[in-house]
């Protein structure tokens, strides 16, 4: 039976490095890859197909790649219909036809893990999940260099808070979605520091086989691929400007995930505590939404107005085009149509002015 490895988890946590490592060890990572070009033919070892597939789901559900809203997961489930299921099935059938170890790397799979699991069963693939672990403070990255002036402190806090919240929500969704499946948690730092023991452990936990003897020290392309300098300096909570209540939740989640990593993916107490943290996060989120209710409404209406203005302008341009096409050349145009065309042009330029003021 063939194996499907889904590399999932939060963004910026080493999923590309993991995917590339599997590629260099002989597993099949279907291309073409996102971000590939002449100088970097492998890009991020992220299949374009998967990115496109998930982007459509996210757009239809109205959620972000790593949405921070506790209800984002439910929103994503509502758009996973039979059509999407068939699409995924065709992709898996095609890619697994001639390969017995297929790897798909895409952090957006946190929203669709259930679908992947079900379709893998239909196609006759054994699914394995690899979740990359990287400390949330490092994932978010310190923004001290970008926002160095004191006047920027608010923007920096805003950026860091919003992104820690995204890490929290996608981590919770991902752990819950892979519970009960064969899975492994991989520390990005471990992978960069000494990849061989990590890959040996993954082969055992997930039943994978490589085309070189990893444990025996046989030379591999991975030796050149993994650049320990990628690690750079460690970022900690002390480097970030994030509200205390959120740090408390994120830190508890990080500790639970490390327990799960050490326990080869299964630890009931850690999973139970992650459910507690999910409740704490939902509560903090709801309270924040209540507190910021009025300001959020204002922002929402402003953004809606900008989108509406774009739609209005597009309509005006198209209407003007239709009149132009129907009216033919200027000599033969009836007087009434000139008025109509000019009128519509005025409408279009007014919409444009309205838009550029915003």
């Amino acid at each position, binding site marked *: 039976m063939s194996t499907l490895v889904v590399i999932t988890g939060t963004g910026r946590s080493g999923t590309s490095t993991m995917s590339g490592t599997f590629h260099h060890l002989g597993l099949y990572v279907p291309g073409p890859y996102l971000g590939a070009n002449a100088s970097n033919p492998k890009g991020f070892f992220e299949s374009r197909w998967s990115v496109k597939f998930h982007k459509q789901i996210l757009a239809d559900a109205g959620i972000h790649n790593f949405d921070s809203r506790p209800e984002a997961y439910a929103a994503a489930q509502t758009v996973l219909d039979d059509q999407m299921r068939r699409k995924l099935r065709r992709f898996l059938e095609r890619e697994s036809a001639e390969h017995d170890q297929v790897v798909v790397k895409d952090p957006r799979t946190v929203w669709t893990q259930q679908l992947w699991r079900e379709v893998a069963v239909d196609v006759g693939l054994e699914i394995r999940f690899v979740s990359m672990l990287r400390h949330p403070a490092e994932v978010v990255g310190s923004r001290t260099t970008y926002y160095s002036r004191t006047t920027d402190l608010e923007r920096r806090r805003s950026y860091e808070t919003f992104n820690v919240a995204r890490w929290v929500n996608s981590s919770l969704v991902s752990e819950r979605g892979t519970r009960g499946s064969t899975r492994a948690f991989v520390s990005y730092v471990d992978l960069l520091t000494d990849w061989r023991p990590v890959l040996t452990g993954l082969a055992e936990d997930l039943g994978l086989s490589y085309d070189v003897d990893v444990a025996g020290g046989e030379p591999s392309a991975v030796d050149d691929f993994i650049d320990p300098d990628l690690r750079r300096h460690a970022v900690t909570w002390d480097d970030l400007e994030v509200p205390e209540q959120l740090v408390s939740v994120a830190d508890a989640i990080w500790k639970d995930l490390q327990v799960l990593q050490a326990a080869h993916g299964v630890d009931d107490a850690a999973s139970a505590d992650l459910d507690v943290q999910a409740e704490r996060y939902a509560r903090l989120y709801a309270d924040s939404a209540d507190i910021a209710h009025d300001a959020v409404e*204002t922002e929402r209406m402003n953004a809606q107005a900008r989108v509406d203005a774009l739609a209005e302008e597009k309509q005006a341009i198209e209407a003007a085009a239709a009149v132009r096409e129907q009216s033919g050349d200027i000599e033969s145009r009836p007087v009434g149509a000139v008025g109509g065309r000019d009128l519509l042009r005025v409408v279009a330029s007014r919409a444009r002015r309205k838009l550029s003021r915003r």
Partner: protein
Amino acid sequence: MPTPDRRIVLVLGPGRSGTSTMAGTLAMSGFDVPHAIAGKESNPSGFYEPRWVVNLHKRLLREVDVRTLDTDPDAMDKMAPVLSDPEVRAEMRTWLEARLAEHERLVIKDPRLVWFRDLWVDVAGDLGHEPGFVLMLRHPSEVSSSRSEYYDSREVTAVAGWINVALMTERLTQGSPRALVHYPNLTADWRAEALRVRDQLGLQLAPAPDVTPHPVDDFIDPNLRRRQPGWDESPVPQFLQDLGEATFQALGEVADHGASTERAARLDQLRDEYRTLHADALDLARAHIMRDRAVAVQEARRKARANALAQAENADHGAAERRRTETELAELRARTRRLESSWIPGALRGPLSRLRRRGRP
């Protein structure tokens, strides 16, 4: 110049914090509530609110989208177009001048009044008056829980709004003649509080509070205080309770002992704390918007456009016209992309990317 017998008193404070009791006490002591709204079931003796003022405030707040207990610390910025509108000012002046001609001592009360503080002070100033302010104080847990009961407002939002507006009210009345009054003190011993308000604002009360019997004796019922203060079983998170409590204490200090540099500094510190708390909440909750409505609106528009495009395709295409349309659409696509790359709520991303896709040649 204002004299004790010609005076305007503005009563400030959120709903359920005893503003009606204060305004009623003044109304029974020689002040006039111009054209007051009659009582309702939730408050049988009436709110002592001038109908005209309530309607004006409601309309204007709706125009600029500011709520009575708005939680946004920058909400006052949105009031600028209203506060600087000469028509509003003229309207207010006409009304106030006519009321002052009818009665020399007016009490004006509305929970929304603080948002229009500058306008009322200016207009009163034009007419030779310097209004005195009474700020009613009641524990935030009581204000929010009774609010919830009568107005079905969400308690967390109500407490955040209470903190924001209470701190703003204190700041906006600094330097003006004012008295801060604890609602429980007013119901327990209205005479002592009425005397204090009279002395601090320089008012003339007739009949005077020490006259017995006094109509206020029948008006103030200690049972009017419907709840005991405290956060028992409150859904309000601890960090917000703490700030609400600290704000209530700091305002209580000013009520009991008057203003001082130290107390002003403490209130500034609380304003900073609230600003940070609100910014944190906003950062967390940014993505929380009503996606369904936005999606529905865009969907309806998409269908209308699909019909229009189908019709246009039947028409004969001229190459020059097509190029012009394409140029315009390309510009539109560029602007859509720019908007997409700026911050917008997550729920609008879907409609926006569909809009961009449809704009493709």
